[in-house]
C-alpha cells in the first residue's frame, strides 16, 4: 500500500493543541481508549456534531475531542 493510500485510511483527531492521525474503522470509544483517554472525561465530535461512543470513525474524518472536566 502506498503512503498516499495509508494516509487515506486515517482520521485526524484534535484535542486542544494536540493532533493525532489514527487508523479509521474503530469506534469513538475505542479511539479514546487507544489514546489513553477516559471516555467519561471526553466527548467526541465529527464536523462539529456530537457522535455516540459506538460510531465508527471513517477514513478522512476530522474528529475533535472535547474535554469535559472543568474547575479548580
Amino acid at each position, binding site marked *: 500500500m502506498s503512503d498516499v493510500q495509508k494516509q487515506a485510511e486515517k482520521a485526524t483527531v484534535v484535542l486542544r493543541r494536540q493532533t493525532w492521525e489514527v487508523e479509521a474503522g474503530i469506534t469513538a470509544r475505542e479511539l479514546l481508549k487507544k489514546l489513553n483517554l*477516559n*471516555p*467519561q*472525561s*471526553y*466527548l467526541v*465530535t465529527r464536523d462539529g*456534531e*456530537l*457522535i*455516540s*461512543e*459506538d*460510531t465508527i470513525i471513517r477514513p478522512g474524518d476530522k474528529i475533535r475531542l*472535547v474535554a*469535559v*472536566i*472543568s*474547575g*479548580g
Partner: protein
Amino acid sequence: MPMRCRKCRQKAVINMRQHRLALCKEHYVEWFQHQTERTIKKYKMFRKDEPVLVAVSGGKDSLALWDVLLALGYQADGFYLRLGIDEGIRYSEESYAKIKAFVEQHPGVKLHVVDVKETYGESIPEVARRVQRGKGKPCSVCGLIKRHEMNRVAYELGYPVLATGHNLDDEVAVLFSNTLNWQVGYLARQHPVLPGREGFARKVKPFCRFYERETAAYALLRGIDYMYEECPFSVGANTIYYKELLNKLEEERPGAKLHFYLSFLRAKEKERLFANWQKSQAELHACEQCGQPTSAPGRCAFCRLWPEDVLSKPEEAFVPLTLVAEPEAVK
C-alpha cells in the same frame, strides 16, 4: 447495530450508561431540560414567579444553566464577576466575550456585571499577591470574593435566589475531598439548596444530578459558544485530580458517582446524618463592615482582604453595571 434513541429509534448521539439511556439530539435536549425542571421541583429550589440570578462564568455549565432556565420560562438574569485574569490567554476578557455573545442571542435578559479591579482597586491575581491567603495560588481568594459578590449582588438587587451551574461531578469531587479529610462542617452543609436567611439569598444547584459530560453535551448540542479554555490557575487543582479519579471509577462501575452523591443526600435526609452538627453550628454573626453573615464576630474574611478606605467608598461605587439584551446596547 448502531445505538438508537430510546424514544424515536433514530441514531443516538449520547449514551448515559448510569441511566441505561441513549438519546438522539432532539430527545436529549428535551430530556435534559425536563430533568432540570424535575430537580428544581424535587428540591423546592424556586418557583416560576421568583426572579433567579444565575452566576455565569462563560463556561459550559453556567451558560447551559442560563439557557435551560430561559427555555423553561423562568425569570433568569445573569451575574458575571470580572476577575481580571489574563495570564497570557486573556482568560477573563474571552470569558466575558462569550457571555456577551450569549446575552445578545437572548433579547430581554439582563446581565449584571461587577469588575473586581474597578470596584475594589485590584484584580484577583493582584489581591492574591498582596494577602497571605493567596500565597502560591489565587484560587482561595477568588472563591472568597466570588461567594461574597454573588451574594451581595443577589441581595442588593432583590433576587431571592442565586443559581450556580455546579454539576454532579463538582458535587461528588467536593464530597470526596471532604470525606477524605472528614470536614464534618462542610459535609453537613453540602446540599442542592442552601436556604436563604437574613443577608443571604437562597443558593441552588439545578444541575446537581447531571454528569459533567451531560452538561457539556447539552452545550454542544444547543450550539452554546462557551469558554473552552480552563482558568490558567486551575492547573493541578485538587478538584480536577479528584474528578479524574472518580471518572476512572465510573468507567469501571457505571453509576458509581451518581450513587455516591444520592446515597449521601439520602443518608442526610433519612438517617439525619450530621443533623446535630448542623444545629450546633447554625449561629452566624453579621459582619461589622458589610453586614453579610459570617461565622465569627467582627469583620468577615472578605472585608479583611481590603484596606479600610476601599470599602468606605460611596455606595454607588459598588453598584453593578447592568446590560439589557438589546443587541445594540451590549458593547
